[in-house]
């Protein structure tokens, strides 16, 4: 078991660093969305009370970490596990000016709007920390390594962090199965006191892409260090008279940083037409959802330009 936690201030690009480090170390990246899915598999659809969120998360993560090295990219992740040789806790910071600049670029805001949005994000982070961990601020002593992106870009930070994590986790050794059992036991005991029993159903599943185009698009996003989730949500499009869903649409990708869904098309015109129809319906029914279509022609350009191998179907 090897655990690396990465967190940071809102809009400091810590998620981008985490994505790159996970790729460099070949660790499973655990995002808020992915953990939420596992916790739903484990504890059911009913949301857990905030006060048991931390032990519930540890119960799931400790079990999954027996089989996979995990990079936990969550706000407050440093508070999930006690200091130990097999865990490394990192924090990414940057100046307020850089954070405002990121919001201006990503959300296309004026400086004053970005500043206001940053204050909202900081307040949201404090509220979440208070609910989950009781404390609102990140204690500097809770981190093994803090990196500032003020004079370093995300790629450099990722390389430094990956090298440091590899060194530390390699030198310090991994957690013994007995210690893992102990963590699981402690958290399960805490949950049991509140009548919550983990079912052991959550599994690490790597995205199983339905088409080579999707895998290449995932590679493209990884290359640009853009976080993605594969088919995280289905949108009902049509219902029968009893309210049952008769048609739904599951966009291929969700890019959390950009709050954007992306549908990747294939070469078959019939499929492109069908997908276009669903995208049009989704836009009509859910006007607040941002969705873009990545067409096969975009891949053709990559193939043409760089001579990449591409399977057509």
């Amino acid at each position, binding site marked *: 078991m090897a655990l690396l936690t990465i967190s940071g201030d809102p809009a400091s690009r810590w998620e981008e660093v985490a994505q790159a480090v996970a790729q460099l170390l070949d660790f499973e990246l655990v995002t808020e969305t992915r953990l939420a899915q596992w916790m739903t598999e484990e504890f059911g659809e009913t949301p857990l009370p905030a006060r048991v969120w931390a032990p519930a998360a540890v119960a799931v993560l400790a079990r999954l970490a027996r089989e996979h090295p995990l990079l936990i990219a969550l706000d407050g992740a440093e508070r999930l596990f006690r200091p130990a040789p097999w865990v490394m806790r990192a924090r990414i910071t940057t100046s307020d000016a850089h954070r405002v600049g990121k919001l201006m670029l990503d959300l296309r805001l004026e400086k004053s709007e970005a500043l206001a949005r940053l204050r909202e994000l900081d307040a949201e982070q404090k509220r979440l920390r208070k609910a989950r961990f009781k404390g609102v601020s990140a204690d500097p002593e809770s981190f093994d390594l803090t990196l500032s992106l003020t004079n370093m870009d995300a790629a450099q930070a990722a390389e430094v962090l990956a090298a440091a994590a590899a060194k530390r986790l390699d030198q310090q050794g991994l957690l013994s199965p007995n210690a893992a059992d102990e963590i699981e036991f402690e958290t399960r005991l805490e949950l049991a006191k509140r009548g919550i029993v983990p079912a052991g159903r959550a599994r690490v599943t790597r995205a199983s892409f339905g088409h080579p185009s999707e895998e290449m698009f995932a590679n493209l996003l990884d290359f640009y260090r853009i976080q993605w989730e594969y088919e995280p949500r289905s949108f009902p499009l049509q219902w029968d008279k009893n309210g049952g869903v008769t048609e739904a649409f599951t966009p291929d990708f969700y890019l959390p940083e950009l709050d954007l869904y992306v549908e990747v098309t294939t070469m078959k015109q019939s499929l492109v037409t069908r997908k276009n129809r669903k995208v049009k319906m989704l836009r009509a029914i859910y006007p607040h959802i941002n969705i873009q279509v990545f067409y096969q022609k975009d891949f*053709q350009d990559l193939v043409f330009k760089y001579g990449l191998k591409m399977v057509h179907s």
Partner: protein
Amino acid sequence: MTPARENVPDNIERILFTEQQVSARIAEVAAEISEKYRGRDLKLIAVLKGSVFFLTALARAITIPVKIDFLAISSFGGPSQGPTPGLVRIAKDLDEPIHDEDVLLVEDIVDTGFTTRYLLQTLAGRGPQSLGICTLLDRSVRRIVQVPIDFRCFEIPDRFVVGCGLDHRQLYRNLGYIAVLDPERG
């Protein structure tokens, strides 16, 4: 003037913008840039290799003094990437800092917005006074990531184009016009 067919490579399907049209449009955009940045110190930053031809033409048409600098980034699927695409990175950094300078990023083409977003993020982190984008071509139909473009010479259709710095496997950058390429042809 359109070049004679015998002087056009076989792979070229059609010419979108002739050399004269390109020059005239660059002159118009250069005039807008000169006006906007008059009285300020402007630095043009071009991304190697594709933007070099555009940067040169643009800089010569701008009527205010400008500084220039270059950077290069690794390519998706480029030769150094190996079997997996790896991560985008700066392959050649700027020679000078850009802190407190008015910076205009000069691009040959903006399409999905992925590369431009990465470049903007990288440059924005270095504290310039202002940061704008000027692109020769804008293929906005392919945009995935929205990026703010301040100056654009041409909006182009959803086709693979070469010329004026744009390549197909490193060829055709030196064409003075912008053309649609059909790699299957010729």
